[in-house]
């Protein structure tokens, strides 16, 4: 973080030696609105109407437009990639989608993301982080585990 922004190696990769089981990662809030869902739909090629078309979503029995589960999964893991210092260090990542993130037109939704180091293997320098993601007070991801290889 001390290097100039123009320097390619600006962010160092986190060192395994400074990490302990139980460490909490800095938490974050991901704000998601309809514009963001349209952006994700285009980027991911997942154009299912339930993620942007409110009358359609309601017609198929949903309370409102819901976020792509993969949007939630993809944005939540930035907590780990930023902490690790290199997005390429996340070698495994899995989640269960436990509840949809409902995204109202006027307010959007906030996804609160936190993470805790669950295990750390000094031989391989692999660290497993358990992520917690909640929206409107409910867990939206279950068994969310990301494995990062540190320096």
């Amino acid at each position: 973080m001390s290097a100039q922004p123009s320097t390619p190696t600006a962010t160092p990769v986190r060192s395994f030696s400074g990490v302990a089981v139980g460490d909490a990662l800095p938490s974050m809030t991901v704000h998601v609105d309809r514009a963001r869902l349209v952006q994700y739909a285009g980027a991911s090629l997942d154009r299912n109407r339930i993620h942007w078309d409110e009358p359609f979503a309601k017609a198929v029995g949903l309370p409102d437009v819901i976020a792509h589960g993969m949007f939630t999964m993809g944005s939540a893991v930035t907590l780990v990639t930023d902490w690790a210092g290199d997005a390429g260090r996340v070698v495994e990542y899995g989640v269960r989608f436990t509840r949809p993130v409902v995204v109202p037109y006027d307010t959007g939704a906030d996804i609160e993301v936190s993470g805790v180091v669950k295990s750390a293997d000094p031989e391989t320098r692999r660290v497993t982080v358990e992520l917690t993601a909640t929206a409107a007070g409910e867990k939206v991801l279950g068994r969310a585990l990301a494995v990062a290889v540190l320096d």
Partner: protein
Amino acid sequence: MPVNADFQGRVYPPTETYRVSAAKIREFAEAVGSADPVHVDADAARARGYADVIAPPTFAVLIAQQCDGQLIRDPEAGIDFSRVVHGEQRFVHHRPLTAGDAVVGTLHVDTVREAGGHAMVTTRTELATEAGESVCTATSTIVLRGAE
């Protein structure tokens, strides 16, 4: 059951080649809010030891969901897409997907099972370069809601 159980164990032929581009990586990284320069700055990526800009960890879903489409659109599978819910997703990266990769996906239908009136189908897409180097294993479980 709202899916043909005979599909368990089926393996589809490798898909057409998907060419990973720097532009698509940038678009995807911006959409999920990943600010790591390795997604957009080739010099930063090379300084970290990569051949070019690399994709965020969930980018592979873009290719894997196209592979899954082979099963979902297969009339013999009997899947009603309007009843499909994404239940679980997992990625194992053998190395990061990198701009310039020419990737083919091979879809495996690992399990088809029933639980509480719903069907659950777990698929596994093995992504490899045209040269045969394994890049990523993407595993997905979809839930097919039964009639209420």
